[in-house]
């Protein structure tokens, strides 16, 4: 079991900055994130896009902001559980919480800080009736083990890079690969588009464009799909697997079932005081929370994290008196033994 002082759900900019503010109060943090790297949306969706409203940065690339935050929190030795989604929370007898991920990793902390942004990124599911009934029975949105497609018939739908790349890859594994795309143009990398065209001419990929998968059929598992072609009409295609690849979409996910008060897909917090949720010991900061006047801005999340951490300190150390200290005065003392502090002015008499 991983034990820490503050367990942070979400390793986006706000979650990362929480580590810094907590570190100043000598509190240790551990972060859980469903993505395989820290940075949340900034790293996953728009690392190369500029942000102009981070105070004192006239312009900073989202990816660079994350790199800088990681550097800033380094002295506080944060722990990471990456590529795992926080699934369940259980209150313990001592008042602490156990948070378990989808892969079974258990974390324990007296305070949980949810900085989950828009939620965890989940595959975007096409609006096909009964599609969820076939999940795990031939319908997969993520390819985990390509070997399960060996010598099977596979239909891939989508027109982006992942649809192209997996079609190419599986053309050497599956017995038959059909790629279905709504348009006759592909937006993926030129190399991949060319390769798919080539494999289609060789008969290794069955390319169906101007078409969409509209229905799924099968008894216990998927056995065929109905493809609607703009001109040719309906095509029934026998298949063992359907892999819809339409990118990712953020979802609040399992957190929605933790007993927290939710409004419009966000967690209601007490913004007049400490960003606490309706469950004592659980706080929500950044884009994941809501309150009157809420603005989903990174800079607001930084503020919320700073305030929430002060109250988390009081909760963890009820008998310890503490007042906030300026870093210019107190410096930054890392858990790794490093210390940053302002140079003392020397008084020299002539």
């Amino acid at each position, binding site marked *: 079991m991983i034990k820490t002082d503050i367990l942070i759900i979400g390793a986006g900019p706000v979650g990362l900055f929480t580590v810094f503010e907590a570190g100043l109060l000598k509190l240790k943090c551990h972060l859980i994130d469903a993505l395989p790297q820290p940075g949340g949306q900034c790293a996953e*969706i*728009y690392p190369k*896009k500029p942000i102009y409203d981070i105070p004192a940065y006239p312009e900073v690339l989202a990816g660079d902001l994350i790199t800088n935050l990681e550097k800033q929190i380094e002295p506080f030795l944060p722990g990471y559980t990456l590529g795992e989604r926080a699934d369940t929370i259980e209150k313990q007898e001592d008042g602490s919480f156990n948070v378990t991920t989808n892969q079974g990793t258990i974390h324990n902390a007296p305070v949980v800080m949810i900085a989950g942004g*828009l939620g965890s990124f989940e595959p*975007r*599911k*096409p*609006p096909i009736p009964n599609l969820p009934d076939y999940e795990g029975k031939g319908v997969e949105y993520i390819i985990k083990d390509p070997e399960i497609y060996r010598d099977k018939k596979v239909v891939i739908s*989508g*027109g*982006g890079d992942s649809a192209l790349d997996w079609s190419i890859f599986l053309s050497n594994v599956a017995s038959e690969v059909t790629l279905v795309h*709504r*348009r006759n143009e592909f*937006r993926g990398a030129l190399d991949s588009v060319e390769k798919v065209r080539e494999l289609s001419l060789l008969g290794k990929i069955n390319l169906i464009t101007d078409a969409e998968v509209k229905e799924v059929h099968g008894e216990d598992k998927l056995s065929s799909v109905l493809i609607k072609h703009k001109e040719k009409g309906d095509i029934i295609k026998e298949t063992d697997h359907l892999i819809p690849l*339409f*990118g990712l*979409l*953020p979802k609040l996910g399992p957190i929605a079932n933790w007993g927290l008060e939710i409004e419009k897909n966000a967690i209601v917090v007490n913004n007049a005081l400490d960003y606490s949720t309706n469950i004592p010991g659980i706080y929500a900061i950044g884009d994941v929370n809501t309150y009157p006047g809420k603005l*989903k801005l990174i800079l607001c999340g930084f503020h919320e994290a700073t305030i929430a951490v002060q109250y988390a300190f009081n909760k963890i150390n009820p008998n310890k008196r503490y007042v906030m200290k300026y870093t210019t005065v107190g410096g930054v003392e890392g858990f790794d033994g490093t210390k940053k502090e302002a140079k003392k002015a020397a008084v020299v008499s002539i």
Partner: protein
Amino acid sequence: MSDIIVKVKDRDGKLHNLVAPTDMNMNVMELCKAYELPVEGTCGGMAMCASCQCYVLSEHDLPEMQDAEEEMLDQAFYVESNSRLGCQLNLTDKMDGLELELAPESE
């Protein structure tokens, strides 16, 4: 510079006449949010989520689609030939009377 009217049909078929300022660098997605219409605008306007997809019902001369919008609509659902992303439609005087319908929400 004056306000314009944008007519938006929501997902229940109800028509909303939105008074839209053209001097605030706003787009259709933001306008809908300002009037609390059910438009998520999840990605904040980067043409990366398609939650602001709408159908253009009138014959207005709209800004040409850029790569990012085309790419996103390529991945989105319920796309029709008159689909646009609200976040890519910056409000201008030329859009006075523009008629739109919100596309269904996708999962």
